[in-house]
Each structure stands twice: as C-alpha cells, then as structure tokens.
C-alpha cells in the first residue's frame, strides 16, 4: 500500500505560537483516518496546511508523491483534495444547489453536468430535498452537510472533514457515518476531525492524536484510547490510570 498523502515534519507558527509542531503522518488510499485532540490542538491548522490555505513554516506535504505545500488552495483542490470549513462558509446569495455546483466547475465548464453532479452530492448527504432553498434557511447541521456536498462536487480523491458531525443527533450522525463508509468503499480517502469519540471509534481505521500542536499518538482507535499520553492530554495532567 502506498500513501496517498504524506505529511512530513509539518510545522506552523503564528508569531511565536507553534500551532503545528513537527507533525508527520500518512494516509492510506481508501481509508478513513481521524485527527483528534483537545481544543486548540492544531487540527484545523493542519487542514489549512494540507489544503494550501496556509503555507507551513517548515515541513512537507506530499500528495501522490508530489510536494504540494507551496500550492494555492485552488490548485490543491484541483489536484484532488477537498476540504470543509469548521466554521461553515456557504455562498449566502446562492441557493443550496448552486453552492453545490461550484465545486463541480473545478473539472467541468458544462452547467448541466455541474448541476447533475451537485444533485448527486446533495443526495449523498441527504440535502436533495432542499436544493432550491436559500442557505440561510438551513439548520446548522444541514449547513455542515452542505459543506460536505460542496466538497464532494469537486470529485476529490482526499476529503478533509472538519467537525462536520458537530450538532447532529446520534441517529443523524450514524447516517453520516454510513455515508462516509460508502465513500471510502468507493475509494475515497478521508481525514476527519471529530470530537465525539464514539464516532471516531466507529468509523476510523487509524487515529492521529495532536496535543499542543505535536503528534502524541497514532494507531488503531482501540490502541489510541488506551494510551496514557492521550488520556492525560484529554483529562489533564492530574489524571493517572
């Protein structure tokens, strides 16, 4: 198995604050990996580095073997990496369907083709019934699903999902987990930031744990949750098993 994405010694500092500190991991094609860690651990910054929204202070991002960390976000997207935003960013004066169409224009200029791809993406995430709604008529969970549909319309090879299930009821989250599994079965590689451990345990085959910007653990979910360093990072220094 070759890695679809490899992150090597990735570091990002913001005026002295090291948000991501010498992080390395790799993603196998067709697998779902979870990136977890307490608030402020550097998960979103990691996404921004991979997606080209930020340039790293040091380190490399290799996608299909090519170094991509100096590419702008639109180029990274066109290579096959799509991301959602933790703070949702719908295009507010465009309908739900039109929002989902935008991503398709990264690979086609045909409006009809983009529209049918957008319907397909919306169907995937259960939003097809709201295609003609305005985005401000959507609930927050629906807006998160719209983020996902927009990303899916770009036909990604790698999908970066930043807390898309936040605010969903357990049954709804289970539905999304099912969608993610199906996407992975079709060969999509997924990197997922998620706080609910039950979901992580359920869906991820590998877990990467960040704390204060550094990777403190990596492995199978059951292995990682038993790791004392991980427990300590989540529950504080006073915790001893």
């Amino acid at each position, binding site marked *: 198995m070759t890695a679809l994405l490899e992150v090597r010694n990735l570091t990002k500092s913001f005026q002295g604050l090291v948000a991501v500190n010498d992080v390395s991991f790799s993603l196998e094609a067709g697998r779902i990996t979870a990136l977890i860690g307490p608030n402020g651990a550097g998960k979103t910054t990691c996404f921004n580095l991979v997606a080209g929204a930020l340039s790293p202070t040091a380190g490399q991002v290799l996608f299909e073997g090519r170094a991509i960390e100096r590419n702008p976000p639109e180029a990274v997207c066109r290579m096959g990496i799509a991301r959602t935003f933790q703070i949702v960013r719908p295009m507010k004066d465009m309908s739900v369907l039109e*929002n989902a169409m935008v991503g398709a224009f990264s690979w086609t200029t045909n409006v009809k083709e983009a529209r049918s791809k957008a319907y397909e993406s919306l169907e995937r995430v259960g939003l097809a019934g709201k295609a003609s709604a305005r985005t401000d008529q959507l609930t927050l969970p629906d807006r998160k699903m719209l983020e996902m549909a927009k990303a899916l319309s770009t036909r990604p090879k790698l999908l970066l999902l930043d807390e898309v299930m936040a605010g969903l009821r357990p049954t709804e989250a289970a539905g999304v987990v099912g969608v993610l599994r199906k996407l992975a079965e079709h060969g999509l590689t997924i990197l997922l930031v998620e706080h609910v451990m039950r979901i992580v345990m359920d869906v991820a085959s590998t877990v990467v744990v960040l704390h204060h910007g550094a990777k403190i653990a990596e492995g199978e979910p059951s292995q990682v949750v038993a790791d004392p360093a991980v427990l300590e990072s989540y529950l504080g220094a006073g915790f001893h098993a």
Partner: protein
Amino acid sequence: MQRTSDQASDAKRWGAGVAVFAVLAVVGGVSSAYVISLLTIVLLFTFMGQSWNLMLGIGGQLSIGHALFVGIGAYAVAILNIKYGITPWIGLLLGAAIAGVVGAVLAWLSFRFEVRGIYFALLTIAAAEFARIMFGGWDYVGGMQGLFYPAPSGTMDLAMLRGDSQFYYFVALVLAAVGVAGTELISRSYWGYVWRAMRDDDEAARALGVRTFRHKVLVVSISAAGAAIGGGVLGLVQGSIFPDSIMGMGISVDVLIGPVVGGLGTAFGPLIGSMAAIPLHHAMGSLGDSLGIPGLNSVAYGAVLILVVWFLPDGIWPAVVRLYEAVQLPARSRISQLRKVEE
C-alpha cells in the same frame, strides 16, 4: 420537477424581456424628439450599467472609475472616425479591446499586490482621473477642447453609424437589449456561477477550486470592454467629447447609479434604475438652471440614492419581484390546494 419549473421561469423571464424591449421600440417610433434623446441616454447608461453590474453585482469587484473605460471607448471611436474617416464599428471593437486590456492590467496589478475591495475601487478612481488629466493635456486628441464629430447629415448610414436621433435611439435600444440578455446568459453560464461564488466568499470559492485571481481579472476586463462600447456610442450621440465630461467622475457615477438604484446583480435592475434616475437627473438639472441653483441635480441624485438604500436596499427591481411573488405565490398554492381537493 425542479428543472421544469426552472425552465418555466426562464421562459417567463425571457418573455418579459422581449415584451419590455418591444414596448421600448414602439416608444421610439412615436415619442417626441426630447423624450427620444433622453431615453437614448437612459438606454446607453443601462448598457454601461449592465457592464458595471457584471463586475460588482456578479463578480464582486467595485469600480468607481468606469469613466476610464467609457472614455477610452469614446476616444477610440472619435479618433479613428474624425481623424481618419474609419467606421465607428472598427472604433468600437478597438476601444473595447484597449479598455479590456487596460482593465485587465489594472486588475492584475491590483490583485497581484493584494489591493482589494475599497482600495481597488479607489485605484479605479485614480486611474480614471489620471486618464482624464492626460487626455486633457494631449493636443493630438484636442486637449481640453475635445473632439467634434461633423454635424449629422440626417441620412441614415448604418455602415458609418450615422443618422438622426431616432436612429441612435434604436442603436441604444439594441445595445441595452444585448446588455440585458448578455448579463442573463453570462450569469447562467459557468462564469456566472464561479463569479458569484468568489463574490460571496473568496476563500471558500478557492477551496472549491475556483481560480479567483484569473476570474477577477477576467470580469474586470469584460466589464471594461462593455463600458467602452457604450462610451463609443455615447460620444457619437453627443456629437462631441471632452475629457472632463466623458472621463469625469460624473460619468462614473452615472454608470453605477442605474444598477445601484435598480438592483445589483440583476439583469433588469440597471434598466429600471437608469429609467428612474437619469430623467430625474436631467429634470433637476434644467430646473436648477432655470431657478439659478446649480448642482440641484447632484442633490437630487444624492437624495434618490439615500432613499433607495434606506427603503429598498436591494434596489427597485428585487422589490418588484418580491411584490409580484407575494401576489402570485398564494394564488398558485390556492390553485394547487384546489387540485388536491379535487383528487
């Protein structure tokens, strides 16, 4: 289901457009010379407003210096025609091409160096003022004394774009129709979608693969070319061009007032807005002249702008559409309820 209703409303929109322009054509056949010449200006500013609207209403890039492009078009047509006897058709094409390049270079330089939003808008003013002063000091184009077309002979000559005021009315009408249809077509094309995406959220659009830099340069360039064509015809209609009038701030304001008053980013907004604002501007101008109050027209412009922004922040046209839907939709849902009852 969704698609058929889209198609129905598309057909309705095009139908409405054809009807509006048919009425305007009849108006051109029966109105007095004064009304015709006023409406000609309205229609020309409708067209230039469309091009400005494409840039802000769809592409999200604000220009307060469109007089630059209007002036380039006017001078290209006038120089070729007056000095060399070359048909305005060539002048219009050349003017559009030059303005397109100037717009692209301006946009490229600004966006390359992160001059965006209101700072880009200020740069467009600076560029227009620079050009106005440059043309004013350029003897070859007549300096501040400007350029004059020979008096019209009265016979219509389509090849040389010469004719009476009615002829120019129909030229302007065709341009305005092309502007409305063109805006509609572009906003429904792939460009329209990615432009609106970058207008709403540049970063999110880029994350979806939209190459916003080149699209911003493109929308400015196309808008500039459109404004230049309008400017070329405006010069012909007025019979003379002076840097202070054709490249002055006044033109930049006249271009944007239609879409702002009528409705940003809509196909009909600039037509409605120009219809409302420009005759008012003229009426207040003549009233101001006869009362000896110069600048009354500018006060009126300001008042209209404030009133519209205050009461109809999206402009007149979206308010009309909302009103129409408020009347129509309940009727439709009543009908569909009746149908259900019948079933």
